[in-house]
């Protein structure tokens, strides 16, 4: 996919009406570590894989999933520094909205503001688009559990399951096969771990950490990290499931 002369600036369309710089930004996300968001029967889960690219790294730090407010979380996929800029903006929007309107920003409003911000960087030649896709998971009493994904183009959609990064194809096919809507969050953890492990099949020898957060009926509907022991159990069980599948073949 060569853009020849039409890919030098984000402010230039190609002859077919494509904006190559935005597509290249999306490529940056597609080549990065997998992130998953999924709505279950009783809540919503965000999960990310983190490769421990150096033994010098401290465990369970270098987060990719953050709180925007008590009931809203954001997961970053792609270039993390870009993602953190978007996160800062989302936090500011959420806090200013609450300051002005005395209610927390609902997911559709917040994701709209984030999408507009991300989109703005696709309009001017002076700045490059963000190389990061962000996932927003939230709960509020009126709209219930919500999940949105915002791509580098500024496109945003509400999903019941979404994924981006290297392992997105594997995760998408798993989403088709399994009805997460019928699983509780606790039950779903194993299958999410399984998806993340399968996502980096080719890099099995490397060490990985898994970061998962959830908002469920059982944890007071707040956005919190899944307890580490639950994650570890889920990873263990997932590895067993994968072994069984492979032996079955």
């Amino acid at each position, binding site marked *: 996919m060569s853009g020849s002369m039409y890919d030098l600036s984000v402010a230039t369309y190609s002859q077919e009406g494509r904006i190559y710089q935005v597509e290249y930004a999306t490529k940056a996300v597609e080549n990065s570590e997998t992130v998953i968001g999924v709505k279950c029967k009783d809540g919503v889960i965000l999960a990310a894989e983190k490769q421990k690219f150096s033994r010098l790294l401290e465990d369970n730090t270098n987060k990719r999933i953050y709180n925007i407010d008590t009931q809203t979380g954001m997961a970053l996929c792609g270039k993390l520094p870009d993602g953190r800029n978007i996160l800062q903006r989302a936090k500011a929007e959420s806090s200013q909205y609450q300051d*002005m309107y*005395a*209610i927390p920003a609902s997911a559709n*409003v917040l994701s*709209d503001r984030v999408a507009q911000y991300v989109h703005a960087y696709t309009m001017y030649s002076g700045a490059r688009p963000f190389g990061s896709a962000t996932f927003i998971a939230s709960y509020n*009493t*009126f709209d219930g559990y919500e999940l949105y994904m915002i791509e580098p183009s500024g496109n945003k959609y509400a999903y019941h399951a979404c994924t981006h990064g290297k392992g997105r194809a594997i995760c998408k096919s798993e989403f088709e096969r399994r009805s997460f809507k019928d699983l509780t969050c606790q039950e779903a953890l194993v299958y999410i771990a399984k998806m993340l492990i399968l996502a980096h099949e080719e890099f099995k020898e490397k060490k990985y950490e898994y970061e998962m957060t959830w908002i469920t009926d059982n944890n007071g509907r707040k956005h919190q990290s899944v307890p580490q022991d639950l994650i570890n159990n889920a990873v263990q069980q997932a590895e067993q499931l994968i072994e069984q599948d492979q032996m079955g073949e």
Partner: protein
Amino acid sequence: MNYTDILSSKFEPETTGTTIMAVIYDGGLIIGADSRTSSGQFVADRCADKIDYIHDRIFCLRSGSAADTQIIAKHVRYYIDAHAQELGRLPAVATAANLFRNFLYEYKDSLSAAIIVAGWDPYKGPQIFTLPLGGSVIEQKWSIGGSGSTFIWGFCDSNYKENMTLQQAKAFVLHAVAHAMFRDGSSGGIIRLLNVTKDKIEREFIDYKDVPVK
């Protein structure tokens, strides 16, 4: 919807005289106000409408400088409209109260405005927020304001009951406002009542001959 604006035929000059009241009952709330707009001793409008529309189920009662309160209500009406459009559902009464409060607090040195925000929302039902001069917000089950309110504190304190029926609440507001109008020179005319519930808004006009205390 009726609201006072410079372009409308009910344009109000400077006034501080008024009696305004709001009471929550079991199922909604009743808003009441007198109808006198005075410029000194001259009654500029004897049939004014002091119940301002902010949103479909949110109203405000204004006291203090008419100019100050009108312009603030106009801004809040605009912000609430834009907010409700983005939200896609009815705004919270607390949101309207917060928007008013931001004005009253930021510009407290330049303004002379005290407002009662009253309405119904699907999140917390009927609510009343009193916003006095300094820009604080107090949520209350009933609230009175304006120059006429000073004469009826005793009456209201002894006659208010929680969880009144619609009829009881209407009678309470009617008599309270009537008593205030009786003793306050800056309040008078007719009494306007507004019943705000989940399903509807009902305006009522109590003509001078039916005002209970005169």
